[in-house]
């Protein structure tokens, strides 16, 4: 069930991102930011709910986990797609590397810093505080709605200029060849 849900989440995120990208390039950024922010709701409920040892409580927690996983996986294909669309083809490798470094930095530093809070305030508070990361990150992602359209247009303009420059170079070569006896 969870495997099927996972597959559906990834495919749905990609398909929806692509579909809405065709409608408006800003919608994927909206989807990305809002799904990150919405992930905090099931995660908060899962962290703070009271667990009994009966099946119902565990089923509820599993459903919340399922929902959190589904929502949190949505931005992942969209994030890389946006990155691809706002960078030149030759710099995309570097852009992906930068993003991976930042991701790994947060992944490593997060538990290190929160371990200090856990020792003083407890795990529950630390978990709840960590969810602020999704609220902040989601809000910043929403900010891309204002920039992504212009940046994508800029990239296409740069590519067109590059093609024109290449053509101008070839024209110069032609003139030189023609003047060469």
């Amino acid at each position, binding site marked *: 069930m969870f495997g099927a849900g996972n597959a559906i989440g990834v495919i749905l995120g990609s398909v929806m991102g692509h579909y809405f990208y065709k409608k408006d390039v800003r919608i994927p950024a909206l989807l990305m930011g809002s799904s990150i922010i919405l992930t905090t709701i099931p995660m908060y409920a899962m962290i703070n709910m009271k667990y009994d040892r009966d099946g119902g409580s565990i089923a509820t927690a599993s459903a919340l986990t399922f929902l959190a996983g589904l929502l949190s996986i949505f931005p992942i294909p969209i994030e890389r797609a946006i990155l691809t669309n*706002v960078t030149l083809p030759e710099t995309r490798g570097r852009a992906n590397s930068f993003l991976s470094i930042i991701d790994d930095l947060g992944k490593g530093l*997060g538990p290190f810093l929160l371990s200090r809070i856990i020792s003083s305030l407890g795990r*529950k508070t*630390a978990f709840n505080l960590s969810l602020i990361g999704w609220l902040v990150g989601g809000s910043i992602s929403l900010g891309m709605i204002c920039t992504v359209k212009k940046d994508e247009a800029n990239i*296409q303009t740069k590519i067109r200029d*590059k093609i024109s420059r290449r*053509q101008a170079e070839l024209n110069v070569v032609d003139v030189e060849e023609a003047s060469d006896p």
Partner: protein
Amino acid sequence: MPFLIVSIPSFFVGFLSYFLPDPERGSQEKAVLEQVRRVDDEDQILIPPDKEEGASLEYEEKREVDAIAYDAEFSHNSNFENLHTQNQRMQKSSTGGQGSDHCEEEPYQYDIEKPDLKTTLAMVRTPTMILLLIQGAPNVIPFGITSVFLNDYLAQDKGLTTEVSNHMNITLEFYWKNGNSNH
């Protein structure tokens, strides 16, 4: 031992990726596709009928009408030079001037430049790129913390059995690991 065994398939799959062809970089860019379409359209206009049949009057008339329609469609974009001619030149230069006009053209390819510090800085200064990088760190913090501490939290603080807490943790990990190896 199980951890060693489950890692074995990744060695083989990783090795197989060596044989995958590299996708042509930049070939699906909107600007490049526009150029390719333009070249194709121009080909349809300029390619004459078989020389053995001779250029008929009908063909000449159609060619004229097509050329007017073509000019009307593309005259607004003066930045675009004739890539059809560009490809011919490239073909001729590669064959020592012996390339034919239409039959032996190579498809247009995006000219990849080696990225340098200037292009990298320009990339990092792009507002969307800045936002993507800034949002990355706070977004990953809950992922990292949950991966490390959720299991203990559910088992020790919430009183769940180790099996159930593992099940919950694996569910989330399953999502995240399958969605993106970075998370």
